[in-house]
């Protein structure tokens, strides 16, 4: 399959965005792309947006107003929660160079648990997790600068 829309990239937002822009530009109400087990179908006006990929349940044979169940696709990834940075600053996993990290992959966390520190203007802000679940990934290196809204930690709420 072409580089422009690799099936592995079927959820690539940029590509989908381009498709939607294309539709808006030309005032199309529906677009349906299929190949092998991949399919992208977008409808405007009625505003149903659906994507499906191999792992997903077979999409219903079209037109129906039904397809509401939205991104069902990477079932595992879809349920993941992400702790995002509430401010611009520097990300620290621990309270000091010798301290243990607040959280590690595999840890179970609760909303009030400190997930990390963001240092901004010499102030060390403890960032609460805000969610419950199991830590599945730390997305930023210790000591790295982070911007507002940047994903920091991935949490599986069902694990």
């Amino acid at each position, binding site marked *: 399959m072409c580089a422009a829309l690799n099936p592995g990239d079927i959820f690539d937002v940029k590509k989908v965005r381009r498709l939607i822009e294309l539709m808006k*530009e030309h005032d199309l109400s529906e677009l349906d792309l299929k190949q092998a087990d991949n399919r992208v179908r977008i409808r405007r006006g009625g505003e149903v947006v659906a994507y499906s990929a191999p792992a997903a349940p077979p999409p219903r044979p079209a037109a129906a107003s039904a397809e509401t169940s939205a991104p069902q696709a990477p079932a595992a990834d879809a349920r993941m929660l992400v702790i995002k940075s509430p*401010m*611009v*600053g520097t990300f620290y996993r621990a309270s000091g160079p010798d301290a243990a990290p607040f959280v590690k992959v595999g840890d179970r966390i609760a909303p009030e648990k400190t997930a990390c520190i963001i240092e*901004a*203007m010499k102030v060390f802000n403890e960032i609460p997790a805000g969610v419950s679940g199991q830590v599945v990934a730390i997305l930023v290196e210790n000591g790295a600068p982070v*911007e*507002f*809204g*940047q994903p920091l930690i991935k949490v599986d709420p069902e694990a």
Partner: protein
Amino acid sequence: MFKRILIANRGEIALRVIRACRELGVETVAIFSEADRDAPYLDLADEAICVGPARAADSYLRIDRVISAAEIGNVQAIHPGYGFLSENSHFAEVCRSCDIGFIGPAPEAMERVGDKNSARALAREAGVPTVPGSDGLVASEQDAVRIAREIGFPVLLKATAGGGGKGMRVAANDLALASAWQQASAEAQAAFGNPGIYIERYVERPRHVEIQILGDRHGNVFHLWERDCSTQRRHQKLIEESPSPRLPAETRRTMCDAAVRLAKTAGYYSAGTVEFIVDQQDNFYFIEVNARIQVEHPVSEMVTGIDLVKAQIRVAAGEKLDLRQDDIRPRGHAIECRINAEDPATNFRPCPGRIDRIIAPGGFGVRWDSHATTGYVVPPHYDSLVGKLIVHQPTRREAIDTMIRALKELRVQGIKTTVPLHLEVLANTAFHEAQVDTTFVERMLAG
């Protein structure tokens, strides 16, 4: 010179500063809110950092976030643009305390010129004429009546913290003054959290003429002549030009000297603007100082050939301005039209949205300063400026003709803009004859 600076602003002025930096070989860190994430000018910066959500109060106006971005962006200085934090002396002070350069005047000078009251005192100290009025805030309605009788009706009530026409009222007699006092105080409190009001004589149908100044940290202050910004609608500038078309040469010279004197008295450096009103008899009165680069700075750049934003950056880096006042000679005539995303048909309601297609004008004597490209979405959260069209020609008449030509060439599809309003003004005989004062546009639209 700085190696790397942060631009604490958005839109066309952020792009303007990026351009200046690229020419100077200075790296740039842009900040953006979530609403500006896809703005194409961000690609021209060396780094771009999201500082918060769309609301300016949570992003561009948050000093802590801007400073944090400066720290993680590892910059030596911050250019504040206009609006947002540009005239916030506290922000300039925080920069200083964090050892980050502020590309603008010193906080002390900014404070001296920032408050209208202390600015008036400064003008008096520098021997610059001000509109007759109360020496400072007026304590009560009774005082207001007494002072108004002294300086003579009609009088103007102004909020000390105001701007953009908010908290302003005109009163023609005692009775009108009473209600105007109530309204102005309430409005000032609501808009600025500061009910302080002062009074001055109301100048009827004034022209708005401002002097561009530029100073360095070695005691040099120059003027780059004047801009006439009388073509306004509801105190919002629409069209600016230089030179001011009806100003006598002697008055022009006197005003420019007054502006330089005032800036020197305030210890002002960097770019700044000293605003005056000029009455029908060509008397001029100091109004205020804008302690920042202004939207309309390009008209002064066109007639003098001096890049004001590059000069600001050089001054902030400690350089001495390599200028002589006698060499700053205006050449030709420049006009700027502000192209706003507003719908003239619905009383100029802001009209944000996607620009399906834009074709910029070009050719001889045309400059286009805009961050908008085909596909750009004008966000609803900020001001509606989508671009500035500037023309430069040997004469005012030719500048008007080129502006009309360029406005008709400009295509902005998908949103409404102020282009039709500009074309109406530029076709108006009174505008051709420079019979323009700050009430001109509203009179034109009314009749």
